[in-house]
């Protein structure tokens, strides 16, 4: 575990621009200043409201002034912002950012053999009394990844079963979990995630259990309140934190957030809210355009998923034997199905439904391309911006403190060299809570897949980071030696050392594989990586275990 954490921190340091993350072994220095001045920029205060060549003054975490003709105060660090674009920091409607995955336990093997007929709340995945704030880890690398594409705040929820606990809104920066938290207990989080091997296992049972819990919670609340008024002669209500946690939702004060996987789950959540009367928020919504009327009737807060089905070029190849006509028909169907996903945001906008976005199932690297696809499918840039800023702020009840570039709000800002949604726009600064992260402009956009004409050096010692659920394999070291163009190497991981002879480099594309024993079978592990300077990225596939993302950086020469 230590090794894993260390790897994370290392990579944080590598990925991070200067400014944040200046830990290390030296004594911690306070920042030189907490006042920043951005001048001569297009300040997009809110969707459609732009100050041409204006300024923003940030002090002690807040936006102190916005407007034209501001002067940089003496204590300010003046950031280069000429002709750049300043937006309010983006707000993620629902995710697990900053909430590390718990260690795998053996749950998957439960359920056979002796059955558990009356599982505990915990075993059943019913943990409403928990709060995500107790699980936050500022080191989670997902925080910096999301920040790097402009997200500055997120409504985060615990991981778990059908009712994993209470969510909170956090800022995506800061080295202290306590300072990250903006609002605690903002939501009760629910999902259609059954317990393995015990009740509730299917969505059927989750629906029923939810109704039962909610009704019991109402009963428990009434009982407790009557008992508090006049205990004498009344049976004492049992202490029950799980039921008590529903109280604010019963009072209409706290939304129950459902992350839904598909339109059917969305309807299930709508059904529960309609029956039981609690305030509802829906996250990870897909195909919402097929449910406009029920969505409108529900009054639910809506967060559309920023995860889209992979674009065509990446989609798996079809079987080869179909006739041309059949192939065309299948492709037409597939394209239509794809469009259902891409045009959701535009169609909802057209229907007048307000929405934000959520990223629970989205990968950071896909989010900007996905936004681009939605815009191509008819969403306007202002609508997209509203869904990233003002609307989620409003839906999370935080419009007073975030969502726009206005005086008095938390200094969460995104600064780009071109309009955010323009092709090739680079993010230059992201301010979280008044402190900036700075980003270098990448010299050249990497071509995908690989650039056969690129000239790169493969030799050296590479620290890899593999997004694989096996700890031993998560942070191996790859050593490559180049003898007159002939590459060889070895991969050292927690699973041992593997020598690699079949390494090949074409342009910037490095591929190699080796075989190993795993789970009683021989597994071929193959890597397909693209090298860019001293960093690389790509994927590792390991037979039936699947395919995993790989990132890495070259150890500086000693």
């Amino acid at each position, binding site marked *: 575990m230590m090794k894993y954490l260390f790897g994370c921190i290392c990579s944080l340091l590598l990925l991070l621009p200067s400014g944040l993350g200046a830990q290390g072994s030296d004594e911690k220095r306070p920042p030189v200043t907490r006042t920043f001045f951005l001048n001569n920029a297009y300040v997009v205060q809110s969707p459609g409201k732009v100050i041409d060549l204006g300024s923003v003054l940030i002090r002690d975490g807040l936006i102190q002034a916005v407007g034209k003709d501001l002067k940089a105060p003496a204590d300010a660090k003046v950031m280069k912002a000429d002709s750049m674009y300043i937006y309010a920091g983006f707000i993620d409607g629902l995710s697990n950012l900053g909430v590390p995955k718990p260690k795998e336990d053996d749950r998957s093997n439960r359920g056979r053999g002796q059955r558990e007929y009356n599982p505990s709340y915990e075993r059943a995945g019913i943990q409403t009394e928990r709060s995500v704030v107790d699980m936050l880890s500022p080191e989670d690398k997902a925080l910096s990844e999301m920040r790097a594409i402009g997200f500055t705040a997120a409504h985060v929820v615990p991981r778990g079963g059908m009712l994993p606990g209470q969510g909170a809104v956090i800022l995506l920066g800061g080295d202290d979990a306590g300072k990250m938290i903006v609002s605690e207990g903002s939501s009760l989080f629910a999902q259609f995630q059954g317990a393995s091997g015990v009740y509730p296992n299917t969505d059927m049972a989750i629906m029923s259990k939810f109704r039962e819990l909610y009704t019991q919670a109402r009963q428990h609340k009434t009982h407790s309140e009557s008992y508090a008024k006049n205990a004498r002669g009344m049976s004492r209500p049992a202490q029950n934190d799980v039921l008590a946690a529903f109280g604010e939702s019963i009072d209409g004060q706290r939304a129950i957030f459902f992350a839904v996987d598909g339109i059917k789950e969305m309807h299930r959540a709508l059904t529960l809210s309609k029956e039981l009367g609690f305030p509802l928020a829906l996250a990870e919504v897909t195909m919402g355009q097929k449910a406009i009327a029920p969505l409108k009737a529900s009054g639910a807060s809506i967060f559309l998923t920023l995860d889209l089905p992979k674009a065509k070029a990446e989609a798996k190849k079809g079987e080869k*034997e179909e006739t041309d006509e059949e192939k065309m028909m299948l492709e037409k169907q597939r394209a239509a199905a794809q469009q259902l996903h891409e045009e959701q945001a535009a169609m909802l906008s057209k229907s007048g439904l307000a929405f934000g976005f959520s990223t629970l199932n989205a990968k950071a690297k896909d989010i900007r391309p996905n936004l681009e696809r939605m815009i191509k499918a008819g969403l306007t840039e202002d609508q997209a911006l509203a869904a990233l800023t003002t609307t989620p702020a409003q839906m999370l009840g935080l419009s007073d403190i975030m969502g726009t570039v206005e005086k008095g709000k938390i200094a969460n800002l995104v600064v780009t060299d071109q309009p955010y949604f323009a092709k090739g726009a680079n993010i230059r600064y992201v301010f979280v809570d008044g402190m900036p992260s700075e980003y270098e402009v990448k010299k050249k956009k990497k071509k995908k897949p690989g650039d056969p004409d690129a000239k790169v050096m493969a030799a050296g010692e590479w620290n890899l980071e593999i997004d694989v659920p096996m700890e031993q394999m998560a942070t191996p070291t790859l050593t490559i030696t180049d003898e007159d163009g002939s590459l060889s190497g070895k991969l050292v991981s927690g699973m041992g050392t593997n020598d690699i002879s079949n390494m090949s480099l074409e342009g910037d594309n490095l591929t190699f594989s080796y075989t190993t024993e795993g789970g009683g079978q021989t597994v071929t592990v193959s890597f397909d990586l693209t090298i860019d300077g001293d960093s690389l990225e790509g994927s590792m*596939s390991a*037979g*039936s275990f699947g395919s995993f993302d790989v990132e890495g950086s070259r150890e500086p020469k000693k």
Partner: protein
Amino acid sequence: MLVLVVLLMTTASLSAQVVGKATKGSFLLKNATIETVTKGSVKGDLLIKDGKIADIGSGLSATGAKEIDCTGKFVYPGFIDGGTNLGLIEVSSVSLTQDAREGGDIKPFLEALTAVNPSSVAIPVTRVSGVTTVIAMPEGGLIPGKAALINLVGYSPDEMYAGFKAMRMNFPSSAARGRRDRRSEEDRKKAEEKTFKEITKLWDETKLFAKIKAAKATDASIMQEYNPTLEGMIPVVEGKLPLFIEVNRSADILSALKWIKKTGVKAVLTGVSEGWRVADSIAAAKIPVITGPVIGMPTRQSDRYDRPYANAGLMAKAGVTVAIRSNDTENVRDLPFHAGFAAAYGMGREEALKAITIVPAQIMGLEDRLGSLEVGKDANLFICDGDPLETKTQIEQVFISGWEIPMNSRHSLLYDEFLDRSPGIKN
């Protein structure tokens, strides 16, 4: 578990007695509409003698023959099911009553005929529907073993054996085995490739084994180790024993056709549920097909709902020789309905009828004995009151190899016993 098996065996033999004995003799079917299948429809008489069709004509008479008035009735050749597990599986969820699936992958030495249980309760249930002859198939692995053609009458497998055997092969495929098949596409492809390698190795080794064996015949000094696998494959590799290749996905069918051409085996394609996709290629290769079930699900979610019904007809139209099978065990009796659906969905009644009579006989090279009503052929036939593919038609009397079959089965006997139950609820 043992107790259960004993119990099953007991009940099975009991019911064989209950169903009654078949009778052999001479039978003269008078004034019938005789649907010969190969020579049109004939009004007249049909004489069964010594297990054969002795004569067809009008005004026939035969001394000593039992005369059966068939006025207004029809006579059809017994139906032949080109692929079943009948006799090999008694109760599919009780594993100890299953004899179709031996362990292992390459098992050419296995004989399905050995395990055919003549007392299987499903046999009388099947034959009273007019299905007189079926192929009993072993299952599982690359080479499940040898299938055998059986008549549905007899007290021993040998008595039932109808003179045809074929080796079975499950052709390698990278198709998913079902929704629960979690293997990646890549892994399925790898497994397929591995199987292909095994086949090549098996063929090469068999050829060498056969060569050494031939040499041994003239040279007593040559020793050859006991090798039942290769021994069993020799007639297949040499193209003498037919190979029934189970293959369903269109890509696999094409690859099977290529492989057949390369190896020169005497092949029949079975299953062939996506045959309609590549019907022209099958026709061009002139490889016969035994397809079914017809009444089944489309193989892909995107397929038109009626593909399985239409498959046989589409292949036939493209020029493929098509027989129909039920691929069933206890409900092989549905065979005429499979043909009926194929008929309705484009094959036409005449072709569909042939697909369960003369065509399977031809595919097995038994067209001189089975599959139509012609003088000299085996007396496998039945009398019915209408179109036997039609659901409501009653099959009135079945003959198999000239045996007059008792028209009882567990199903009809339970009907007889319980229709008006005695003692009834109120006596």
